[in-house]
């Protein structure tokens, strides 16, 4: 088994942090400017501006969970621990963005629908997605590190990713019974809304990549520290 600690993936993550951090600051400033200047909606006023963080958070969560499955699949295929570390890091960062999506949704719903939660297909599958990856995180936290836990988590992560298309197409699958607005390609983004949406999306995705790079580096450092601690303990007992 390949269990190198400072792998090419982690070196890449370290190198990406500086440029990603600088780009993130720039994009946050640009997004803030264009979102403030975006016109108010005829029906919702400024309330619809929650869209510029709510939807991008969902896409960042999708990306995190997709990378969890890719990392798990590569770990099973190559038996290289760096891919397992990618899966762990992506799941945690993806869960954060999924949480932000789940928190901002009810704030919008409370103002728009009068109640924070309805038993709508999109909302229910999003909650299921959140619970699935919360369980993944708990599984990794409480299980003894090793190939057995990593293999089980890889299969779990690959199975969990099936919820993403179900979540995205939930509204189509349930026809006209969904209360959640339709997916963006079929809804009309009004004049002046596309640019702030794009800026919000880019800022959120770069934030995701920056945090993922940091989290991935920490996983590598943790493995090296555990190895040194183990070696020191062996020396002490000898």
């Amino acid at each position, binding site marked *: 088994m390949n269990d190198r600690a400072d792998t090419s993936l982690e070196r890449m993550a370290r190198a990406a942090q500086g440029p990603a951090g600088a780009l993130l600051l720039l994009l946050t400033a640009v997004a803030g400017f264009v979102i403030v200047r975006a016109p108010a909606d005829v029906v919702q006023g*400024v*309330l619809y*501006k*929650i869209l510029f*963080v*709510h939807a991008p*958070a969902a896409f960042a969560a999708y990306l995190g969970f997709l990378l969890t499955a890719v990392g798990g699949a590569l770990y099973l295929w190559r038996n290289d621990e760096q891919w397992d570390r990618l899966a762990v890091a992506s799941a945690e960062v993806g869960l*954060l963005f999924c*949480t*932000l999506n789940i*928190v*901002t949704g009810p*704030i*919008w719903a*409370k*103002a728009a629908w009068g109640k924070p939660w309805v038993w709508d297909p999109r909302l229910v599958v999003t909650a299921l997605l959140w619970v699935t990856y919360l369980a993944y995180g708990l599984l990794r936290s409480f299980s003894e590190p090793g190939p057995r836990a990593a293999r089980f988590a890889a299969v779990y992560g690959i199975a969990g990713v099936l919820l993403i298309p179900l979540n995205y197409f939930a509204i189509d699958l349930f026809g006209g019974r969904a209360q959640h607005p339709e997916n963006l390609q079929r809804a009309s983004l009004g004049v002046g809304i596309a640019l702030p949406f794009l800026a919000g999306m880019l800022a959120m995705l770069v*934030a995701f990549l*920056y*945090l993922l790079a*940091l*989290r991935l*580096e*920490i996983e590598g*450092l*943790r493995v*090296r*520290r555990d190895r*040194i*601690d183990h*070696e*020191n303990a062996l020396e002490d007992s000898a």
Partner: protein
Amino acid sequence: MSYVIASYAIVLGSLIVYGIFLRRSRRLLRKALKEGRNRDRS
């Protein structure tokens, strides 16, 4: 308006706090690694 401000505050605040937490964890791990290596040499 307050709903919008609350949403942005939660998102930005959470990302900043998580980022700070990760950077602090990284600093502590680097320090622990350095101390572990120094112990190895001595």
